[in-house]
């Protein structure tokens, strides 16, 4: 038995695929969602896990979530911060609400998981945290500043926490997915020209990303890294 794992944003997309991939490797998975109870419960039923609802932008809620998961399933060995949302908007239309929500859910969702799970993992001298960023953090993207800024900030956070947590044998890494075929990949990205510009000439599948995420979570000598499975969209 590989132990317990937590995936935020586990009801859909890459998070959902990650929950399945973790379960296939023997983890008992806590599937966190917000407002997607039916989907989360379906995932949990499929994989012998448990669905939980928590708003990742609220650190107290995430702390309660982690306490509940560890009471139910035991110590969390792997935590994947995948919850996020995406809105395309030009700079002049960015509102304080959108800005703070983007930071709160995307960056906040990552730092709150670290804050809740990290100290517990450090006390046990083991554990692995993966934050899901975006290849757009590496490239930049127009009409996308709140999302890209938050995804980019996650990288500075994780690089720092990797140094803080290293002596306690807790690993923290970032995955920057390229364009992956989920509901979050909007029409804007689905044109033929863009697809053909990808060296591997296709989008990623959620399963491909999930495999990378679980691999990165399990690689024992990897910390503070940014790994980007992206079909060649970013080569540098």
């Amino acid at each position: 038995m590989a132990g317990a794992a937590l995936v935020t944003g586990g009801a859909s997309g890459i998070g959902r695929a990650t929950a399945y991939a973790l379960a296939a490797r023997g983890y008992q998975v806590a599937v966190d969602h917000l407002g997607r109870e039916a989907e989360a419960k379906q995932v949990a039923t499929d994989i012998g896990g448990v669905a939980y609802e928590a708003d990742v932008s609220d650190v107290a809620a995430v702390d309660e979530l982690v306490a509940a998961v560890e009471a139910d399933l035991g110590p969390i060995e792997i935590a994947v911060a995948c919850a996020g949302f995406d809105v395309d908007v030009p700079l002049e239309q960015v509102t304080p609400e959108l800005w703070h929500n983007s930071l709160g859910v995307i960056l906040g969702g990552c730092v709150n998981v670290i804050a809740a799970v990290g100290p517990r993992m450090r006390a046990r001298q083991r554990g692995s945290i993966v934050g899901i960023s975006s290849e757009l953090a590496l490239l930049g993207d127009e009409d996308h500043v709140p999302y890209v800024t938050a995804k980019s900030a996650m990288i500075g956070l994780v690089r720092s926490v990797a140094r803080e947590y290293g002596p306690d044998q807790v690993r923290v890494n970032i995955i920057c997915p390229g364009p992956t075929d989920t509901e979050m990949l909007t029409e804007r990205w689905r044109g033929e020209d863009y697809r053909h510009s990808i060296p591997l000439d296709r989008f990623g599948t959620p399963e491909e990303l999930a495999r990378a995420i679980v691999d990165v979570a399990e690689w024992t000598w990897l910390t503070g890294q940014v790994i980007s499975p992206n079909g060649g969209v970013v080569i540098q």
Partner: protein
Amino acid sequence: MALVTGAAGGIGRTIVAALAKAGWTVAATDLAEAADVTGAEVTIPADLRGRDACTAVVDAVLVQLGRLDLLVNNAATMTVVEPTVETMGLWWRDIDVNLTAPLWLTQAAAAPLRDGAGQVINVSSISALRGEPGFSAYAASKAGLLGMTRSLARELAPAIRVNAIAPGPTETEQLNRDAEFQGVGLAELHRLYTAGMPTGRLVQPAEVADLVVFLAGAKSFTGECVQINGGMLMS
């Protein structure tokens, strides 16, 4: 016409002076307690928290200088804080000052910058690139600035260039606070930092300022992050 934020600090003050020497007319802004800044044509005391405050600063610059061609987002806080449930309120402080203020300032400045040969220079940090234990909020804010730089470089092109600089350990009064955090004397801190720098010396504020002046005239630079760190981290 240039606007420099955080203009009363070690690096900000030197940027203002260098820009003025290079022929720029500079508006300097910092918190109300800051004294006048040498080389600034106009000094605007302001707390940059909140969109309204940032818009007001840009408006004041336009009223007093008539146009804006360069925005230097330099104002920053660097808070000692680890990400824990108990300290998360404090953790967000660096994000508010170092990341949110540059966003609102750039949003307010975009239209006047577009009218001129506009550009934005964001002061990031080596911390964004290599991580900074004990300063994850600072590193996150400075890394977020890079995503913002790249995105706005694409979005605001070709009228507006957006670049970043990433200084390493620079000889300013911030080092006194660093020394305190590390629990060492200043001389020992110098030794610790320069041990990791092939040049064997701290970066000088004037060198950072010269880089800002250079980027201000470098037409083929956009979306770039230029490091200046004595070799502590290599591109």
